[in-house]
């Protein structure tokens, strides 16, 4: 590195190696986002496309899709919280209670479903919750006319089912990294298991919980399949409104305004998360001093 020639050829190599990735980011990420930003301020053309001009009309018109925003902003946090509640005990069990020989296998078994088709996995619940699934079993024991599919509950089940793995993994990692001698120390000092959990385990697994919640929340904000399959038109998210706006009613400028709003809400969430995690880190450093 000290020789000039070497570092020069190195920098050329760096440019060549990074060029395709840079092009991809430019043309498949930055350009598309700029285009929908521009579209969102444009007039609607006769066929639904972009008609030029500059107007705030579409942003002012956002309340027309208020229900979709309301649903998304209710179901995303509630779904995230449910995922957290279901995932935490499992992550705790895997990280602290399971024999290390089986740990990896059991963790992999949690993660594998996440990488298989969400479409097929959500479809499975249409099958289970639909008229000939659980309701027909309930009929056998005397509960008639129970409707499960196309309800808010069905959507929440689909959410937990779809995104549970994404929540378990980061919590597992933070619990796994936890210094076990702290738990022993607390135990030796007469702390009850509950107190040890509340004062040591839970605070130290906070970063994992925050990461898991952010991942799940962001994906839920853009969810389309789960409400489409299990909400049956009654529970619809921004994603469903977007599919309708772009593919059915072809109102591209308004659809662009909705997408930009969605992206802005997500950016706010991420920066909020960043600030929280940074603060919790400095908070810990202070408490250590």
């Amino acid at each position, binding site marked *: 590195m000290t020789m000039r020639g070497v570092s020069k050829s190195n920098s050329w190599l760096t440019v060549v190696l990074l060029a395709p990735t840079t092009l991809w980011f430019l043309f498949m990420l930055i350009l598309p986002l700029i285009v929908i930003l521009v579209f969102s301020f444009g007039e609607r053309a006769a066929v639904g496309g972009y008609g030029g001009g500059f107007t705030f009309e579409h942003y002012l018109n956002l309340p027309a899709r208020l229900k979709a925003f309301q649903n998304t902003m209710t179901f995303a946090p509630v779904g995230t919280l449910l995922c957290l509640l279901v995932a935490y005990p499992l992550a705790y069990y895997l990280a602290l209670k399971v024999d290390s020989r089986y740990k990896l296998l059991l963790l992999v078994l949690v993660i594998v479903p996440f990488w298989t088709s969400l479409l097929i996995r959500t479809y499975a619940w249409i099958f289970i919750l639909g008229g000939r699934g659980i309701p027909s079993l309930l009929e056998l024991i005397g509960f008639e006319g129970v409707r499960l599919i196309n309800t808010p509950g069905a959507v929440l089940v689909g959410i937990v089912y779809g995104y549970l793995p994404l929540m378990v993994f980061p919590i597992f990692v933070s619990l796994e990294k936890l210094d076990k001698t702290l738990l022993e120390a607390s135990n030796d000092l007469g702390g009850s298991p509950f107190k040890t959990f509340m004062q040591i385990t839970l605070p130290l697994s906070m970063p994992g919980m925050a990461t898991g919640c952010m991942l799940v929340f962001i994906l839920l904000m853009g969810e389309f399949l789960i409400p489409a399959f299990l909400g049956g038109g009654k529970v619809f998210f921004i994603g469903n409104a977007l599919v309708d706006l772009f593919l059915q009613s072809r109102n591209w400028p308004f659809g662009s305004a909705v*997408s930009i709003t969605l992206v802005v809400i997500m950016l706010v969430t991420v920066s909020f998360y960043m600030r929280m995690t940074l603060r919790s880190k400095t908070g810990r450093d202070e408490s250590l001093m």
Partner: protein
Amino acid sequence: MRIYAIAVYLFLYVPIGIIVLFSFNAGRHASELRGLSVQWYGKALSNPFVGDAFFTSLVVALSVAVLSSLLGTAAALALQRLKGSLRVLFDALIYISVMIPGIVIGIATLVALVTVFDFLNPLLAALWPEGAKPPKLHMGYLSVIAAHTLFTMSLVIILVRARIAGMDRALIEASMDLYATPWRTFYQVTLPQIYPAILAGFLLAFTFSFDDFIISFFVAGPNTTLPIYVFASIRRGITPEVNAIGTMVLAVSLILLVAAQFLLRARTRR
């Protein structure tokens, strides 16, 4: 605690199991199990629409996997040498492209490409020699491949970079000290150490692309991938044939995932 864990595993796997079980249904109705048979697999495999969709998905997923593992590895290697604000910028772009929901990428890509194509097509037609048919740019294989690759390329970068970070730098320095050319150092020292991560990235990229519905739904144009076909069939009604196709889709990703996990595990063992 243990019972709770078992319950969660059942919750995760029973629905998948039900789809698999009902795909072997001998009866004509999707939700009435009447003996076992593989007739629906035969039906699904001989359906030309399923065949076409499967072929499209395969071509797209394979291209995405090859492209993203090549480009992602190249970028991961280069990013090691990059410092300062440029590095921060790339890191931000990598994380944005992993985090941004598929639906936003799908929409933004659709709108941007259609706009660019509408602008370029008359130009191409004007520039093209008289008489010959000018090429017409449109949505199709390439747009799906490009849109999927944005996500999967960043995924490969993250995986390979994690591997490079855990690599023994001394080996590379030793190789340099022994006057190996940079190419030889890469080929004989770096590559053998990072290839499990590259291969795992390849498999995850393939699985992502093969399973993706929402991005393809927007940018596939006239092409139908297998998830798009399945989505349309489910909208029409549940049939045992859908269960059979679903089981095959699950099987493809499960096999690849087990292979990817195996490779990532081999990586940590060493």
